[in-house]
């Protein structure tokens, strides 16, 4: 092979090695220490036809539950360290504790513990994409059901 051909082959091999290194580096998810946890406590009921305008981003998700009325009772956001507790007071004397178990830039695992007066109601561990949310509901409240939207974003 001529000299320019050899050089081209070396350049090509070096470049492929760079590609692999950058791909592996990107694929290796970095660990995020801070997680922003946002909750929304929503009263879903069949009294009236109110749909709280502040719940517009969740409208499609909430309407899966076939209630006629949805009202935002409380919205709160907290930043928490991995393995740290974010505690939220929930209407009805309940308390929600969210603990990020594992947090990468893409996926998070959250331990969610809901209690009322020291009595546990639910304890669950959920894995979701950063920025994603899920709904936890069914607790009776003011003639309807309490639904809690929980979202978490790695910072």
């Amino acid at each position, binding site marked *: 092979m001529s000299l320019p051909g050899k050089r081209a082959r070396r350049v090509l091999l070096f470049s492929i090695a760079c590609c692999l290194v950058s791909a592996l580096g990107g694929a290796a998810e970095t660990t995020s220490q801070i997680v922003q946890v946002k909750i929304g406590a929503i009263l879903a009921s069949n009294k009236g036809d109110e749909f709280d305008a502040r719940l517009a981003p969740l409208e*499609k998700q909430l309407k899966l*539950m076939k209630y006629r009325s949805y009202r935002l009772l409380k919205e709160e956001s907290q930043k928490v360290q991995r393995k740290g507790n974010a505690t939220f007071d929930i209407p009805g004397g309940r308390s929600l504790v969210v603990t990020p178990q594992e947090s990468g830039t893409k996926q998070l695992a959250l331990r969610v513990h809901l209690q009322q007066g020291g009595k546990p109601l639910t304890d669950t561990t959920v894995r979701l994409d950063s920025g994603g*949310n899920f709904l936890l509901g069914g607790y009776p409240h003011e003639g309807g059901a309490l639904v809690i939207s929980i979202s978490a974003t790695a910072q």
Partner: protein
Amino acid sequence: MTNRCEDMRDRMGAWLDGELSRSRFEEIRVHLESCSACREERRQLEKLQASLKELLVAVPSNVSFERFWPGVEQRIERQRSWYENLLGWARDLSAPPQLAWAVPAVIVLLLLGVFSLESFFPGSRLAGQRNNFANVESIDAFGRNVAVLRENETKTTIIWLYQNQEGEDESTGEKSEAGPSF
């Protein structure tokens, strides 16, 4: 002419061309010093080789270049259009050494782009469609029933807790839902 002379003359051509081993070369050289007939043969052979060389020198044909050169000059001096420049640039770029840089460079840039978007804007729309589904790894509802709904269109996960039968919720004294309402 002796048999030895005949043998020497058979190898005279190879001797003149320097194709013999050193010992064979010396053997012929010593013989030539003592044999006038063979020296004459060598002279004739050298003369023949010189004549052949003269004949084999190529004589340029009498092609007329008068009409050719003005055409070349015209093409050199003519201003190339942007289109021709672009084509030339693309042709140079696709030549193997440049292409070796270009292909991996594009791949690296694409990879960096994707990973950077995800790193700097986690969960952003620019970083691609997020899968909003949540996976429930474990759940303890402390005696209540649990229903998990995963809805494909909105990629929603709902965890719904309810009492087995309609009745008082012990903790609140409120009526509990009999089951999921979705």
